[in-house]
């Protein structure tokens, strides 16, 4: 079937302003112009405002002496000699420390609660559901303030500290635990640890190759455990335990020696782990539910028992669903650690975007650096995630 056009009629024409191509270019040019105008005006205002406030822009402040103290520093930090740049690194390391430990705790707690929600035990399932519904629906900031002000700051004062075995003190200034001291010969233990890790990886690769070739399985898990933990312990024993402890001791006004865990750190860690665990629990539950019942039944009919079924059939498939949202929960935890500013834990935002910004007045530079740090963490994680996703994605047809 065809449409007969009268012979000699001109081809259908549209006015140029109705041409989709022309329109699209016009819209884009207009958008760019508007954004450019905004950026230009903002920049001009910023320059004018900064000049009026006598603030020199630039990153010259980076090497200036900071002149303030930080309550928890993983690297040497001294208020007299250290620079703002060093304060930045101290803050960043503190952020990474609390995020790293928080991620480990939240993952363990989250997996336990997620699996508990699917338990056949009615009481267990209901308690886990109650935990998730309560914790998810209360703002994290409120939980942090509660842990800090109502729990940890309400601990007894220094004079009435809880003392455990004469070596561990707990009071409203923090938890004081013995600090291990490494004596000579400790290097051998470290070497043994490194050798154990390398050996475990090598054994895993070998076992996998052998299984692909012959179908025989090797005890990878117990062997790995023995190599990573057993070997260093054995060397430690051979070297005659070159390990001592500095015990915290109560002085008149303070506790000296040992490792001090600040209440700010503990409150942030509790809050972040407990809050994120509720979200991880939901991710885990959804992941396990996403593996269809037929997979388990098929595994049973192949003769696998319930242990290997879980380990070889259900968990690998559930992980495919769990890992991407799990990573975004890890990112959320890292981003939420900025709430440290509310309880005074010296993380990146509290030290850098708080104190350094207030002292230097370099708002644009400081906020930009902070954002770049978090953006880098986020983008790097999502890049790794995309690589992982493309590796484990289902290959269809």
């Amino acid at each position, binding site marked *: 079937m065809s449409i007969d056009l009268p012979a000699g009629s001109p081809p259908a024409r549209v006015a140029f302003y109705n041409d989709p191509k022309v329109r699209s270019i016009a819209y884009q040019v207009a958008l760019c112009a508007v954004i450019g105008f905004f950026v230009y005006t903002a920049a001009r205002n910023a320059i004018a*405002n900064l000049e009026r406030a006598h603030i020199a822009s630039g990153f010259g402040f980076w090497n200036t002496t900071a002149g303030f103290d930080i309550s928890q520093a993983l690297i040497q930090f001294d208020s007299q000699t250290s620079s703002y740049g060093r304060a930045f690194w101290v803050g960043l390391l503190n952020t990474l420390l609390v995020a790293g430990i928080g991620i480990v705790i939240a993952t363990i707690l989250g997996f336990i609660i997620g699996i508990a929600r699917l338990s056949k035990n009615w009481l267990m399932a209901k308690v886990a559901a109650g935990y998730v519904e309560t914790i998810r*629906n209360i703002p994290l900031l409120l939980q942090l303030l509660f842990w800090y002000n109502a729990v940890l700051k309400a601990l007894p004062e220094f004079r009435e500290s809880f003392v455990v075995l004469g070596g561990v003190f707990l009071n409203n200034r923090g938890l004081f635990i013995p600090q291990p001291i490494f004596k000579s010969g400790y290097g051998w233990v470290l070497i043994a640890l490194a050798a154990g890790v390398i050996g475990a990886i090598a054994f895993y690769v070998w076992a996998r190759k052998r299984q692909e070739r012959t179908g025989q399985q090797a005890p990878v898990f117990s062997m790995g455990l023995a190599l990573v933990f057993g070997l260093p312990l054995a060397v430690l024993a051979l070297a005659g335990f070159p390990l001592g402890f500095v015990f915290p001791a109560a002085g008149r006004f303070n506790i000296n020696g040992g490792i001090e865990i600040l209440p700010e750190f503990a409150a942030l860690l509790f809050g972040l782990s407990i809050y994120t665990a509720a979200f991880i629990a939901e991710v885990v539950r959804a992941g396990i539910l996403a593996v269809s019942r037929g997979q388990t039944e098929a595994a049973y009919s192949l003769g696998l028992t319930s242990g290997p079924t879980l380990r070889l059939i259900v968990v690998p498939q559930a992980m495919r669903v769990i890992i991407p949202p799990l990573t975004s929960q890890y990112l959320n935890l890292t981003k939420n650690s900025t709430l440290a500013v509310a309880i005074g834990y010296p993380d990146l935002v509290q030290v850098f975007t708080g104190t350094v910004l207030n002292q230097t007045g370099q708002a644009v530079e400081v906020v930009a650096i902070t954002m770049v740090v978090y953006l880098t963490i986020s983008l790097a994680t999502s890049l790794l995630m995309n690589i992982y996703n493309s590796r484990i994605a289902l290959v269809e047809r």
Partner: protein
Amino acid sequence: MTIAEGDLAVSEIRFVRGATIAARPPPAAMTGALGWLRANLLSSPFNIALTILIALLLAWLIPELVKFLLINAVWTGSDRDACREVVQHREIGACWPFVWERWSYFVYGSYPIPQRWRVYVFFAMLAIGVVWLLWLLWLEAPRRDLGSVYFFVVLPITSFILLTGWSAIGLLPVDTALWGGILVTIVVASVGIVCSLPLGILLALGRRSRMPAVRLFSVIFIEFVRGVPLVTVLFMASVMLPLFVPEEYSPDKLVRALVGIALFASAYMAEVVRAGLQAIPKGQFEGAMALGLGYWQMMRLIILPQALKITIPNIVNTYIGLFKDTTLVFIVGIFDFLRTVEVARIDPKWAAPVTSTTGYAVAAIFYLIFCYAMARYARVMEARLAQGDKR
């Protein structure tokens, strides 16, 4: 006489049942309360141990909570002495008189007392708007257009005039520095909710647009905002925004935080809406184009109604996150509900060991009720939407 095989068989049968036997009841241990207990709590030694452990935990936790909130709680009093163990010589639970006295501060902050009727009117209008909106999302509601106009146009403008004041019609101007408490929490949350949906839709459409410049801008904006924590966005809004505008137009503190929250929420909303757009089959787009609809007509009449419908549960979940995130304005020095609790709790007049916990308990209950209600709504909506897909 020989007996055929068949005859013998027949002669041996003495009884044939003519009717079916009624089913016997299952063993007593398998049904009723006992059976339920066995199946759900005591199915294996491990489960028995688990049940006992959790029961012990609950037996400790629940009485402690009830004791703190009700039995040992103080119900009347005028200052801190009513809530101190050293004065009262008994175990003290929650300090409710502290909450009664500070309640108006928790709700209005320092909003001038003679002008507080304006806050009431605002709350009432918002309640009407919310009910209307819920009805609006309840699929076959009539006059959806009026509802959305009310919620997205009428409500913001009248609330703004009502709360900030307008001398021309006799409403005294009230500085936003005086606003506080639940009022600010609700204002921040509503601004976030009202702004994030339209902005989020625009950004989501931009991200799926065929124009490279529009797409690039949307992607950069969305990924940038989603990659940084809300605290830094708020910091940026509160310290950098004043730099970017001429000094005489420098926005006040609350407006800066509102801008930060609105931008942040719209980036998250954009991703939620984009997920909905991606779920629409290509045939819907092609069908709309074949009917001769232009881009905006296609989006407004064909695509968005379907895409938004399936994303309603996720939109509500984003709103829950937004509502919890409003507490972060605390950090840039705005007196939201949590901040008023925080200020009241360190007031020397009520300084007692239980004051902090009482204040936090009230705040927790407030957020729990709101967020849980929204979560329930999202779940009911999800179930309702799934009905059509059931086979």
